[in-house]
C-alpha cells in the first residue's frame, strides 16, 4: 500500500520525496560512477525527456531528434571556439539554433501524422546529416569539430568531476522546463491531442499549432542536452546527427517508459551505463544489444520500466491519463488529414 502510494501517488509529499531522491542522485552521481559517464547520463536524460514531450505526451514519434541534438552540438562548439564565451552562453546559443532549425521541420512534419510523421522527421534529420557532412568548412566533415573549450569565468573545469557540477544547472533547468510544460494547461492540451486529436480540434484548440510549439520546445531542450554533451566531450561529430542517435533516444524512452517524466531519465541511465559496460568489457556489439532491447521492449514490455511499475502499483485514477500502449487501436481509426 505504501509502495503503491509512492509510485502512483499524487500527494505533494510523495512528489517531494521523489524530487529529493532525484536531486540527491543528480548531485551524487559523479561520486558513484566515472564522472564523464555521469555527464553522459545527465545529457542523455535531458535529451530523452525532451523527446518524451513529443512521443509520450503528444503522441508524435519523432525519429529525427538527432537533428536538434547534433545541430546544437555543432553550433555550441562553433560559438565556444569562435567567441571564447562561457560555455553556458554557447550551449544556450546552440539550443536556439536547434529550435530555429526545428521550426520549418515541425511545420512541414505536422502535415502528416502517425507513422508518416516518424518517416518524415527521420528524412529531415538525414538532410541535416548530409548538410553537416558536406559543409566541411563549418563542421569539419568526417573529422568533426575538435577542441571545444570548457570555458566559464576562468574556472578550472579540466576535471570532468568539476565540469559535471558546472553543467548540471543547465540540465536541471531543462528538466524543470519540461516538468513545467507537462503540468501546465498547455501540457493538458498536449495530452488531449494525443488521446483524441479530432476532439481537441472540435474543442477549438489549433492542434497543429500546438504540435509545432511542442516540437520546437522539445528541440530547444534537446539542443541544451546536445550542447552540454559537445562541451563535455570537447568535440562534435557526425555521429551526433546520425539516425542511430535518433534511434538511441527513442529506445531510452520506450525502455524507461514514455509518457512519464522519470521513465526516460531511467532509460537514459540504463542505456548509457550499459554502453559504457560493453565498451569497457570489449564487447563490440552495441547494435545487437540496442536492437534486442527494442525488440523485447516492444513485444512484451510496451509500458517500459517506469510505466509498468506505475501500472502495477496504481491504486487511484491518475489525474493525467496515461498513454496505454497495451490498448488496441484499430488502424482505421487514424486521424484524417487536416486541411
Amino acid at each position, binding site marked *: 500500500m505504501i509502495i503503491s502510494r509512492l509510485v502512483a501517488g499524487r500527494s505533494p509529499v510523495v512528489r517531494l520525496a521523489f524530487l529529493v531522491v532525484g536531486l540527491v542522485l543528480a548531485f551524487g552521481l559523479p561520486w558513484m560512477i566515472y564522472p564523464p559517464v555521469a555527464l553522459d547520463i545527465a545529457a542523455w536524460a535531458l535529451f530523452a525527456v525532451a523527446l518524451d514531450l513529443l512521443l509520450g505526451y503528444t503522441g508524435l*514519434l519523432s525519429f529525427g531528434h538527432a537533428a536538434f541534438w547534433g545541430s546544437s552540438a555543432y553550433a555550441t562548439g562553433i560559438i565556444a571556439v569562435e567567441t571564447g564565451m562561457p560555455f553556458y552562453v554557447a550551449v544556450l546559443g546552440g539550443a536556439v539554433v536547434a529550435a530555429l532549425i526545428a521550426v520549418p521541420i515541425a511545420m512541414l512534419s505536422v502535415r502528416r501524422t502517425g507513422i508518416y510523421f516518424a518517416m*518524415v522527421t527521420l*528524412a529531415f534529420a538525414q538532410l541535416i546529416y548530409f548538410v553537416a557532412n558536406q559543409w566541411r568548412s563549418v563542421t569539419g566533415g568526417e573529422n568533426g569539430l575538435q577542441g571545444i573549450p570548457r570555458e566559464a569565468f576562468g574556472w578550472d573545469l579540466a576535471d570532468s568531476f568539476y565540469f559535471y557540477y558546472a553543467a548540471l544547472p543547465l540540465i536541471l533547468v531543462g528538466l524543470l522546463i519540461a516538468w513545467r510544460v507537462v503540468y501546465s494547461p498547455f501540457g493538458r492540451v498536449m495530452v488531449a491531442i494525443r488521446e483524441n486529436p479530432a476532439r481537441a480540434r472540435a474543442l477549438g484548440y489549433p492542434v497543429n499549432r500546438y504540435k509545432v510549439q511542442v516540437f520546437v520546445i522539445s528541440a530547444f531542450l534537446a539542443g541544451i542536452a546536445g550542447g552540454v554533451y559537445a562541451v563535455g566531450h570537447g568535440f562534435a561529430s557526425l555521429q551526433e546527427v546520425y539516425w*542511430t542517435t535518433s534511434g538511441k533516444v527513442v529506445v531510452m524512452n520506450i525502455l524507461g517508459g514514455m509518457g512519464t517524466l522519470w521513465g526516460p531519465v531511467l532509460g537514459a541511465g540504463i542505456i548509457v551505463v550499459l554502453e559504457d559496460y560493453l565498451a569497457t568489457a570489449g564487447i563490440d556489439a552495441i547494435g545487437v544489444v540496442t536492437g534486442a532491447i527494442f525488440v523485447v521492449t516492444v513485444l512484451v514490455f*510496451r509500458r517500459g520500466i517506469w510505466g509498468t511499475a506505475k501500472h502495477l502499483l496504481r491504486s487511484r485514477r491518475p489525474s493525467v491519463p496515461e498513454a496505454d500502449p497495451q490498448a488496441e*487501436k484499430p488502424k482505421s481509426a*487514424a486521424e*484524417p488529414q487536416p486541411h
Partner: protein
Amino acid sequence: MELVLQLFNGLVSGSFYALLALGLSVIFGMLGVVNFAHGAFYMLGAVGAFVLLDTVGLSWWLALVVVPVVLGLVGMVFERLLVARLVRLDPLYNFLLTFGIALILQDVVRLRYGVQSQPYSRPELLDGQVNLGLFVYPKYQVFVLVFSVVVSVLVWLVLTKTRVGMIVRASTERPELTRALGIDVRRWVTPVFGFGIALAGLAGVLAAPMRAVNSGMGGDLIITIFAVVVIGGLGSVFGSVAAGYLVGMLSAVGNLYASAFSQSLVFVLMALVLLLRPAGLFGREEGVRA
C-alpha cells in the same frame, strides 16, 4: 548530351529505389506496417549473393533466384513470429520492432564480415559495354534498368489483372468489407510480406556487382526510400515506383549541377511535396492511413 547520360544514370540508380519502394509499399498496403528492416534485407540480398559465391561458388544468375526466394521465406517466418504479434496495435510499434531487427541484422553482418566492402565481379555475360546509339554504356547497368522495369510491370500486372491481385488490392483498401465478402484476408498477409522482402533481396543481389557490398549499405538507403514513398504516396504502388525513378533522375541531375547537394535533393523534394500535396504525388487522401 551529358544531361541525357546523367538522366540514364539516374534511371539506373532509380531502379533500386523503385524495387525497394515497391516492396515497402506492398507490405504497407497489406499490413499497414512500415518495414524499417527493408534496407537490412536489401543488404542481406547483396551479402547473401557474396557469401554463396564465396563459399559454394554459386553464380550470380542462380543467386538472383535463390537469394530472393530464401529471404522471402525468412521474411514470412519473421512476419509470423514477430510482426503479426503487433499488427493490431498502433503501427508505430512495428516500426520500432523492425528498426530493432534492422540494427541486429546490420550488426551481426558487421561482426562477421567487418565494415570493409566485399568484392563482387559482374557476371561474364553482362561484362563490357553496349552502344545505345546516343552513348556507350555498361551492359550490366542496362540490364539492371530493364530488369527492374520488367519486375515492376509484372507486379503491376499481377495486382491489376489477376484474382490474387484483386484480393490484395481489396484487402488493402477495405479490409473489413473484403472479409465480409467471404475472402480470407489473413491468408494473404504472410505471402505478401514475404514477397515484399523477396523484392528487397532481389534489389540487393542486383546491387552486389555495382555497389559496395557491406553491412552498412542498407542503413542510409532505407531513409532515402522513406522519402521516396512519402513523395510517391505510400499507399500507391504505382506512385512508389514512379517516385523511385524520379528521385533517381533528380539526384543524378543534381550531381551534374551541384554534386555536393545531390544526396540532399530527395529530402528537399519531400519537403516540397509535403507543402503542396501532403498525401504524395500519386497518393489519395482516402487510401492513406496515417
